[in-house]
């Protein structure tokens, strides 16, 4: 079963019949809209006519301005799932303007901000002014939805006006919005009927012909509460003794709704009363569903007469197929049902659940099954829709349902059992995972042994995949605990169990295998595993993860000295990202940062800077949280290369603050990068403090995880030797480097080995044995040449320049040595000049809109066509173009496109 989108939730309620026009309030709403305030908040308890007022205002606003379009979203409790909320938000906007909402559907589900950004851009590009109404907002409690709305309010274009209708003040910074003058507010005191309005309603609309004194009495008794006056009017309609009713009502202390609901119910005939009570358990009413609950036909006629008599039913579509009760009336009915027939309640929910299931509305089927405490039915329906829930990433919904099901019900369903284990991983309760997985295995094994079904999960894809999922979750737990052998063992087992067509299963298993290899320093195996992950993701069409894993792959290729392979992986990924269109997928900025480091290694500083600028222009939303610190690391390396170590240290400090521990081993700790900078600046005391703190010594056992730190230690020991007045022995560094080289060679980490070889040659030179230093240097050069390493040599500064000249004199020649020597000659002069040039002329980031224009400029479209595409005038387009030319320092369209391409902006 799929998870359909309910059109009734998006229906703009029509004007009510026999509604008192409220020009005073409508005018205030108009004023809020025309003054450009972004948010209208209508906050009052049920029964104050909030929804009716908004309907009246919207109809009037559309009469006045034909450019206004309306999106409406009636919320319910299940919208507390961010993924579901955003889906409906996109649909509501799509109904308002068919040009909007499609781009949201293309976003990787579960990414709130990128999806919202896509919607915001689409609204900005559209030609309409949109009023978006969120009705019944009091039901929303999820903090990430609240954050999303704050984001929307802060970034929405002026074409969007948001209306929040709520029975209680929403969890938004209302006071701040009020103070900021962006809020139009109507509250209970504004909404209650004045005496004049009460008289208009009772006498003109309802034709009751009451005296001023009677109207006054009713108005006072109900305090202008509209639902109260409506109920009172309904009670009086068929009555001969109106005076008696008013006397009884105004003389009573009973709460208005309690008194009046009873009156109204009593005035109905027996079958209508029975209909009202039985159908009160429903959130939405339609004839055949009502017939199911009452056990007799005739629901359609009753609904029609309730609608005609204005008896608190509200149509939810144009065809009057679906209705709901007014909330207050439903509450009153439910209270009476619970009093009179509590035994009926679970039975009615059960009938509703069955009807919904039959009509392919599984979410409602689950909700009513849970309300009926029929957990077996709920579990069965949930299991049947798991694939579609997972596809739409409504994880919050699944987690909520799982939490509501009793353990023993889940125990009988291995499919749900595995998701229960998954929910423990999500909650960070690792200890609970294994017992739950074990229970699932027992349930599966019991079936296999005697051939009979001892569990209730239906055969199918989900059940077939369980053994794989179990092992993948075990690998995940082992990984979180740092248990490399366990991760590898479970991931391998998962891989052995996957069927050829289970691409995502294979990817997950291969991913954990790759992470285990990475942690153990076997990068070749890690790369093999992640190539397999990528193949699986490509076949499964999962572009978002495919892009994200490219960064992991490069992280494992670079220490192996496979720079070109890393480069082409980045280039392919950037190409794929570009094909996804606007807005760019989440990892795009991370990919620019990654490739910038390769350009930096080849000493192509302008290209490195351009990619970092492209990443910055894309902003944080095109980056994942785990990778956000990396742009600062890359920028620090660039500043270092430009001869600005202080700026580099500041950037490293920022990176340290942003660093998040993720799934990946921390093989290049930021602290060690700082130590390297200190060493190159001669700040040895600080670097020594770092080494002490990390407990690093030259005699340590070696592992890949600490390779970067140990190489840093070797640099520190060498630096201490060189800087000392009475140099001691370098034997400990020599020994450490020898062992590091053996380990790197054995594991095929050629990139690491090249760096170690360079250090070995420097140690020889420091010992006054330059000639001996040439042997490791020669090997380093041979390894470095095909991959184009420059900075690795250049960063060593003068001592290595001396060695390289010596190498050239002794006959070690070749393009690479010449290239390096040239780079050394330029280094001193250019570093300073480049830094100066950069601070004079910072590359100004292009705005999102300008990037969009740029991309259109790269097409065949003419200027007016581009303007048409963007819904702007040609003059506006000219302004954008002027800004783009200025920022890119060009003066023609072809030059702008060429420059943008060179910068990787398009």
């Amino acid at each position, binding site marked *: 079963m799929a998870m359909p989108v309910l059109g009734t939730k998006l229906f703009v309620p029509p004007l009510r019949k026999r509604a008192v026009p409220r020009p005073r309030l409508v005018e205030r709403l108009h004023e809020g809209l025309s003054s450009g305030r972004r948010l209208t908040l209508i906050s009052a308890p049920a029964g104050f006519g909030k929804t009716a007022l908004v309907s009246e205002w919207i109809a009037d606003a559309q009469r006045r301005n034909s450019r206004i379009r309306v999106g409406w979203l009636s919320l319910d409790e299940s919208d507390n799932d961010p993924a579901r909320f955003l889906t409906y938000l996109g649909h509501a906007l799509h109904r308002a303007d068919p040009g909007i909402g499609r781009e949201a559907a293309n976003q990787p589900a579960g990414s709130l901000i990128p999806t919202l950004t896509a919607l915001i851009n689409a609204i900005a590009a559209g030609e309409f002014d949109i009023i978006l109404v969120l009705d019944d907002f009091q039901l929303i409690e999820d903090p990430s939805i609240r954050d999303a709305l704050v984001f929307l309010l802060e970034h929405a274009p002026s074409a969007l006006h948001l209306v929040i209708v709520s029975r209680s003040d929403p969890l938004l910074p209302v006071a701040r919005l009020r103070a900021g003058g962006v809020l139009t507010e109507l509250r209970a005191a504004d909404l209650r009927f004045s005496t004049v309005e009460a008289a208009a309603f009772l006498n003109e609309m309802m034709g009751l012909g009451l005296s001023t004194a009677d109207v006054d009495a009713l108005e006072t008794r109900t305090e202008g509460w509209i639902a109260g006056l409506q109920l009172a009017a309904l009670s009086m309609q068929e009555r001969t003794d109106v005076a008696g009713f008013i006397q009884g009502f105004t003389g009573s202390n009973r709460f208005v*709704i309690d008194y009046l609901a009873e009156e109204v119910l009593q005035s109905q005939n027996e079958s209508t009363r029975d209909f009202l009570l039985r159908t009160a358990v429903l959130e939405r009413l339609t004839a055949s569903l009502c017939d199911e609950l009452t056990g007799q036909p005739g629901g359609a006629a009753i609904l029609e007469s309730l609608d005609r008599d204005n008896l608190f039913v509200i149509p939810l579509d144009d065809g009057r197929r679906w209705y709901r009760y007014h909330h207050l009336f439903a509450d009153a009915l439910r209270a009476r049902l619970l009093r009179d027939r509590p035994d009926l309640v679970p039975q009615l929910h059960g009938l509703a659940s069955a009807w919904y299931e039959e009509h392919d509305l599984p979410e409602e089927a689950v909700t009513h099954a849970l309300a009926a405490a029929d957990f077996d039915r709920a579990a069965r329906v949930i299991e049947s829709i798991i694939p579609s829930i997972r596809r739409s990433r409504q994880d919050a919904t699944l987690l909520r349902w799982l939490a509501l099901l009793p353990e023993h019900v889940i125990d009988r369903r291995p499919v749900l059992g595995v998701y229960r284990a998954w929910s423990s991983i999500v909650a960070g309760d690792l200890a609970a995972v294994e017992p739950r997985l074990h229970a699932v295995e027992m349930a599966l094994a019991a079936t296999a042994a005697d051939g009979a079904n001892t569990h209730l999960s239906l055969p199918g894809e989900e059940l077939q995949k369980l053994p794989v999922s179990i092992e993948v979750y075990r690998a995940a737990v082992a990984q979180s605990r740092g248990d490399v052998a366990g991760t590898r063992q479970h991931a391998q087992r998962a891989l052995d169990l996957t069927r050829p067509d289970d691409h995502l299963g294979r990817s997950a298993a291969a991913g954990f295998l790759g992470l285990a290899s990475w942690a153990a320093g076997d990068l070749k195996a890690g790369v093999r595993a992640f190539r397999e992950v990528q193949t699986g993701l490509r076949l499964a069409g999962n572009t978002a993860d495919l892009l994200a894993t490219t960064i992991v792959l490069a992280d494992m290729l670079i220490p192996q000295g496979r720079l070109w392979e890393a480069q082409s992986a980045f280039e392919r990924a950037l190409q794929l990202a570009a094909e996804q269109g606007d807005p760019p997928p989440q990892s795009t900025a991370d990919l620019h940062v990654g490739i910038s480091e390769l350009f930096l290694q080849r000493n192509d500083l302008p290209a490195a800077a351009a990619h970092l600028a492209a990443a910055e222009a894309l902003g944080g939303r095109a980056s994942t949280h785990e990778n956000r610190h990396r742009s600062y690391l890359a920028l620090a390396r660039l500043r270092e290369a430009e001869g600005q170590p202080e700026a580099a240290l500041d950037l490293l400090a920022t990176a340290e603050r942003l660093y998040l521990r993720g799934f990946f081993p921390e093989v290049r700790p930021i602290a060690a990068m700082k130590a390297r900078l200190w060493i190159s600046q001669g700040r040895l005391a600080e670097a020594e403090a770092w080494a002490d703190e990390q407990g690093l010594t030259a005699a340590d056992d070696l592992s890949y995880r600490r390779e970067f730190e140990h190489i840093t230690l070797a640099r520190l020991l060498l630096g201490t030797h060189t800087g000392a007045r009475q140099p001691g022995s370098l034997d400990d560094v020599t020994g450490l480097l020898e062992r590091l080289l053996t380990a790197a060679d054995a594991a095929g980490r050629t990139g690491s080995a090249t760096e170690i070889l360079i250090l070995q040659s420097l140690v020889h030179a420091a010992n006054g044995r330059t000639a001996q230093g040439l042997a490791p240097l020669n090997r380093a050069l041979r390894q470095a040449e095909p991959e184009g390493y420059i900075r690795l040599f250049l960063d060593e500064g003068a001592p290595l320049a001396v060695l390289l000249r010596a190498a050239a004199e002794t006959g070690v020649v070749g393009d690479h040595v010449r290239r390096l020597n040239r780079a050394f000659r330029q280094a001193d002069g250019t570093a300073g000049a480049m830094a100066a040039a950069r601070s004079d002329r910072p590359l100004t980031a292009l705005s999102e809109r300008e990037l969009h224009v740029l991309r259109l400029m790269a097409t065949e479209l003419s200027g007016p066509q581009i303007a048409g595409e963007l819904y702007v005038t040609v003059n506006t387009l000219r302004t954008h173009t002027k800004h783009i030319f200025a920022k890119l320092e060009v003066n023609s369209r072809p030059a702008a496109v060429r420059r943008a391409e060179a910068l990787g902006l398009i």
Partner: protein
Amino acid sequence: MSTSSSPSPDPGWYEIRLQGQLDSSWAEWFDGLTLTADSDGTTTLTGPVADQAALHGLMRRVGDLGVPLISVNPLRRRHS
């Protein structure tokens, strides 16, 4: 994590006062609290409330009905 786990062993008792009179037929709707109509035209709900989430749920029901809320007081625990 599931409904089969035992309910909170020591629910707190609360007294909730509302403006207006509600008859006892609403007791079930208010999760089985005792409703008492007082002579001053107010109604008092009294009874065990499992936890803070349940208390907030009750408040929401009061709000949904539009009944003016006067006070909410925790009571010293009584064992019924």
